[in-house]
């Protein structure tokens, strides 16, 4: 507590103004060690200066006292001081360090993709931005990875710094407790485009944050329906199982499906039209095309009708039949082998 008080008083020169409890704890720890370290430094350097002045050579033949022994009492006190200072730095730092390693359960999750020259901050609803926006008084859990070299995410106002490594995930969390603009940077020099990683975090009050996210996340603004469909294909993870080049993965490719007729696993036939697309998104395992397993996650509740409409519009653009049903049966798995492009 006292550390926090000192921290607020002096931190205007030493630290950027703190924006979280963790930051104020770190400041308190810093000033605790600082006071002890400055005392130790001036005790040592000051005593040395006094001894140099007092015990200087006064005539050429003068020699120092012959004693070689160390006074055990003073030495003991001196070492106790050193152990105390090191112990304080260690023990005092542990609670906040440990606290930082585990994000609180249910924290608001933002994913960070770092690469040379820019950040992607990916919000829970799939919105991607190059600025970190957060709500005040809500724990934020950052999961991070790098596409190329090592970076770090550093937010000085939160006294937060965490490495971002290629090939593995790192996390960090924080809870900003006041609104404002704060610097975001990488502390590790990462080659070309390093200066572009100096960006900002904007902390908003909770209701302002929700409004911002809703506004900025309306993907229908400024996009045609097929464009929205393609965006959803990328965001919702469809591309993990469905290609758009005719290659069958776990699910059929989206190339040339709309308007075609297929055999289903239970021996029936089905033509891919608006109704079938909707059914295949919301309850995908009801009528499965022959050659595939009923393993897709149902998206009921995750997409709305307008979004399904957009996906359907996009599927039409991928199909050579432009929405005109034909009777000839085709199996995408076989078709893949005959693809020219």
């Amino acid at each position: 507590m006292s550390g926090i008080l000192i921290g607020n008083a002096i931190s205007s020169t030493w630290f950027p103004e703190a924006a979280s409890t963790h930051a104020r704890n770190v400041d308190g720890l810093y000033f605790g060690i600082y006071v002890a370290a400055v005392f130790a430094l001036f005790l040592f350097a000051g005593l040395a200066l006094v001894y140099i002045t007092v015990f200087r050579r006064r005539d050429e033949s003068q020699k120092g006292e012959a004693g070689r022994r160390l006074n055990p009492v003073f030495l003991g006190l001196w070492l106790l001081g050193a152990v105390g200072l090191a112990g304080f730095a260690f023990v005092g730092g542990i609670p906040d360090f440990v606290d930082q390693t585990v994000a609180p359960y249910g924290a608001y999750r933002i994913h960070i993709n770092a690469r040379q020259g820019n950040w992607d901050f990916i919000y829970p609803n799939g919105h991607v931005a190059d600025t970190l926006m957060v709500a005040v008084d809500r724990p934020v859990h950052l999961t991070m990875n790098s596409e190329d070299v090592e970076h770090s995410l550093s937010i000085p106002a939160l006294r937060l710094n965490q490495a971002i490594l290629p090939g593995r995930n790192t996390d960090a969390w924080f809870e900003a407790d006041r609104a404002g603009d704060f610097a975001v940077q990488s502390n590790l020099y990462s080659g070309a485009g390093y200066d572009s990683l100096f960006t900002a975090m904007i902390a908003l009050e909770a209701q302002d944050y929700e409004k911002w996210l809703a506004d900025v996340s309306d993907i229908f603004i400024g996009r045609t329906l097929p464009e929205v469909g393609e965006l959803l294909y990328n965001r919702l993870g469809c591309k993990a199982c469905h290609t758009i080049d005719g290659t069958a993965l776990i699910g059929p490719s989206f190339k040339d499906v709309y308007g075609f007729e297929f055999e289903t696993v239970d021996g029936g036939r089905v033509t891919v039209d608006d109704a079938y697309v909707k059914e295949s998104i919301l309850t995908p395992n009801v009528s499965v095309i022959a050659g595939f397993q009923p393993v897709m996650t149902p998206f009921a509740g995750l997409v709305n009708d307008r979004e399904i409409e957009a996906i359907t519009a996009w599927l039409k653009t991928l199909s050579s039949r432009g929405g005109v049903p034909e009777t000839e049966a085709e199996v995408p798995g076989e078709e893949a082998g005959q693809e020219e492009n």
Partner: protein
Amino acid sequence: MSDRATSTAAAGYLGEPSGVGAWFTSLDHKRIGMMFLGWTMGALLLGMIFTTITVAKSVGARGLDPGFMYRVLTYQRVFLVFLFLVPALPSVLGYFLLPLQLGARNMMLPVLARCSLRFYVVGLVLILVSVAVGPVATGWTLDSDLFLRDTGAVSLLGAGLFFLAVGWFLTGLNFLVTVHHGRAPGMGFFDMPILAWSLYLSGYLLAASGIIFAIIILYLMASRAFGGGMFGADADPLLWKNYFWFVMRPAAFFALIPGVGVISEIVTGLARKPLAGYKTLVGAMIALTGLAFVSWGVNLAGQGLDPGLTLVFSAYSLLVAVPAALIAYIWLATLYKGALALGATVVFVWGFFFQAGIAVLMGLFLASPALGAYLGTTMFASTQLDYLIWGGVMSALFAGLHFWWPKMTGRHLNDEVARIGAVLYVVGVNLALVPGIILGTRGVPQDMGAFVNGPAGVNETSALGWLVLYSGIGVIASNLISTLWEGEGAPANPWGATTLEWGTDSPPEAENFVETPHAGEIYRY
């Protein structure tokens, strides 16, 4: 002995054989030490030129774009760390003084000593060529992910560092063998002067770090040349960082432990008082040597190290405070009731107390778990390294040169000039570096102080400090250089000190001692 000095025209080892060729092929440890002094001062000058560019940038020089500045920052550190910080004490004062202190006629492996000098020069030249051909922007830590991608002459830089690292290994090995086999009759391990002890312990660190650094540099270059491999594109960048700091953490110690030896010799010699707690001091240095090998992870704080491991390294690193405090106490106890001869040397000694003290105390912040994660990759860490280079090692080097210059050259320095230089140096270095601590706590990324405007006046104060520091170094250097030609001749033992190097001529003759000296009780005044 004193009439010998006059009859040989006080030339000693500096006299015959003369000529550049004779010096360059010399196996004499004193000549090798003096040549190391020349080369390291040259490297320091280059480091100062690069530093000047960053200081100019920090006070608003225009036309220095980031791409250019990252290259400047890389080479500033390369010159100051690998070519100045590391060799300054072991190679300059170590090569010159170790055989003299032990009562030996030369290093036990003189060819390796000459070899380490040549490797240093080859390394320096290769690095300079890389500056000319294609300056590298990986940062001085050569992070493997950046090393693989850099478009500059990284292989030349890598090859240069390889030669330097082999040189460390050879130097360390030489120290170990010389201490084991070169001691004068009657000199046991605990009769050795404290500087010889510090060089002996540094020998372990130099040999181990040097050979490992040489090997990992080769692996790194191979990974770049052939793709894949140990540090290839698929490797975790932390792998390189762990190896690098496993080598460079001890480097900070083998740069500084000889400084402890130098300062201890000077304190006892100038105070004409036996070193208090000699064996305790040796024990403290042994503890530092051990901790040097196990605390590297503290340099990875905030860079993705496992949290549990971070705490272990944090504890090891904080333990450094205990031997450091012991050493400080021993210096104070030796000064107490001594008879200290005042002069420029004492100013440097006090500067070492103050500045090495700051470097060690800054280590407490960096090793504290929650603080280290935040400060470990900021200017705070860079400033600690700067305090080690400009504050700790440089003040020990200057103190040592001022103390042993009469022995090295046979001439006294001009003490008036030396005092001016010393005061300018101590004032300048602290004025230049303290602002970096503030930039660090404010979160400015490491080495990037030049790009950021801190609170008003911070960068300007620092620039003023650099100006004072540079003028101090200029005064000191001109004093040292001018004494080579003119200067009052020095007697064999101007300070009344007791270690064996003061028992021979100033400057010593090529064979060091006319008769093999016998070691008696050390530090008896």
